Structure formats: C-alpha cells, structure tokens
C-alpha cells in the first residue's frame, strides 16, 4: 500500500502549492492535480464508482473555475503584500486551532477500526440483501437507489437548488443597470 502514501504526499504538496501560488490559474491546476489524485486513490481502494464520478465532477469543477478566472483576473494580488495585523492574528489563531484539532483527531482515529479492517456491521446486511431484494449487482447503486433512495432524492434537491441559484446569480435580464 506504499502507493497510497506516495499519492497522499503528492496531494499535500499540490494542496500547499494551490493555496500559496500567486497565479490563480496555476492554483486551479494544482487543485485539479489533487482531485485527480483522489480519483486514482478511489481506484486503489476498490471504489470504481467513486472514481468515475470524481473524474467527471473534477473536470466540471476545473472548467467552471477556469471560466470564472478568464472572465475576471488570474493574479492574486494579496500574496505579495506584507502581512496586516488581522492576518497575523488569523494565522496565529488558526495555528492554535490546528494543533488542538490535530491532537483531537489523532486521538479519535485510535477509536475507529484500523486501516484495511472495516467492521462491516451494517454493510453485511446490505451485501446479503442487495441482489435478492434490490436486484442490482452493483451494491453501491443498490444502496443509493434502493435502500437509501430518500437520501438521493435530497441530493437531487440540493443539486437542482444550486442550479437555480447559479442561474439566478448569472442572469442578464432583470438586473439593475448602473
């Protein structure tokens, strides 16, 4: 499983570059590197459905980001300036919170099952009943579309609400002119 660690280190480096670089287009490309690494890791942990969806969503995300940046500016002019007082305060508070959060999460990680040994207490039922009750060979699709179909209805509601929000924000007619 060494390749998982290599991809995670690559993702951390790409994420730091995405947050710190001056050119916003390069930052978005670094974000795309993180997203496609996530897709490859989904394949490595035996989640092909997630990998497919992640690749499609990643391409769409990058396209939207690039469209916005091309319409506006691709220079992050806040990087070169020296730190203001509030920013130093924000960084210090963030560092304190990050250390506390990290310690708490590492302690919490001791309580969940170790990597590679999922408990499968709930999933056993779904795996046994998936083919006879729901009739689908893909158990992830069974869970999404049959056992937990109401969650998927909520997901579709959120997705269409966001589409309505984007359309309302980007409309040309009916906006007050300056």
């Amino acid at each position, binding site marked *: 499983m060494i390749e998982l*660690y290599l991809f*995670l*280190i690559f993702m*951390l480096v790409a*994420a730091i570059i995405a*947050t710190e670089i001056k050119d*916003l287009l390069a930052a978005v490309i670094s*974000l795309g590197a*993180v*997203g496609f690494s*996530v897709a490859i890791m*989904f394949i490595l*942990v*035996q*989640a*092909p*459905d*997630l990998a497919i*969806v*992640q690749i499609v*969503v990643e391409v769409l*995300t990058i396209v939207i*980001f690039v469209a*916005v*940046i091309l319409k*506006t*500016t691709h220079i*992050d002019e*806040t*990087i070169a300036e020296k730190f203001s007082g*509030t920013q130093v305060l*924000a960084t210090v508070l*963030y560092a304190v919170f*990050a250390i506390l*959060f990290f310690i708490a*999460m590492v302690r919490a*990680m001791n309580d*969940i099952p*170790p*990597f590679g*040994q*999922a408990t*499968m207490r*709930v*999933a056993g039922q779904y*795996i046994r009943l*998936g083919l006879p009750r729901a009739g689908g*060979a*893909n*158990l992830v699709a069974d869970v*999404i579309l049959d056992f937990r179909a109401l969650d998927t209805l909520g*997901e579709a509601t*959120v*997705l269409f609400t*966001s*589409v309505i*929000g*984007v359309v309302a*924000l*980007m409309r040309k007619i009916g906006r007050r002119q300056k």
Partner: protein
Amino acid sequence: MTIFVFCIALFLIGLYAIVTKRNLIKIIIGFALIEYSVNLLFALIGFRRGALAPIITKVHSAHNFVDPIPQALVLTAIVIALGTTAVMLAIALRIYERYKTFDIAKIKKLKG
C-alpha cells in the same frame, strides 16, 4: 492509522486557505480541498485489505467486498460539492463585477 492522519493534514491545509487567505478564489479552493479530504477519509475507512469492489459477479460468489455504505455516502457528497462550488464561484464572479477585486479586505461597502 497514518494514512488517516495524512487526510487530516489535507483538511488542515484547506482550513488554512479558508481562514487566512484574502483572495476569494483561494478561499473557494480551500473549500474544495476540505471536500476532497473528507471524501477520501470516508473511502479509506471503508477499505478492507484483499477485498474486492462491491460488485457481485458470477466469478466471485464469496461475499468478500469493501464496505459499500461509505462509498454511497461519498458519491452523494461529491455531487453536492460540485453544486456548492458552482454557487460560490457565481457569487465570486458577481462580487468581482461590482468591486473589480477578489480581495475580501477591500470588499467592505454594503451597497444594495
């Protein structure tokens, strides 16, 4: 467990971008990083060593699968992440058209 700690480190990088950066696009990139890290953590928790992808075939009739429930949850979360990112970027574009900057320190006027 080390691999979970890496995911938390990715989460903290995204949180760093949200809290300390002043550029709106960088803040949205931070949100996207947090979404990736949480999705990845879920998929990693559901992993079992030597198990197969949760698709029933005739060849592998023995039910030795990875956990399908985190995968189903993450599948929902990925799509919702796309929706939230699109709305955030649309708002950022409108803010830029009005103020000609992405710097949140300069976006102070409350004008209707």
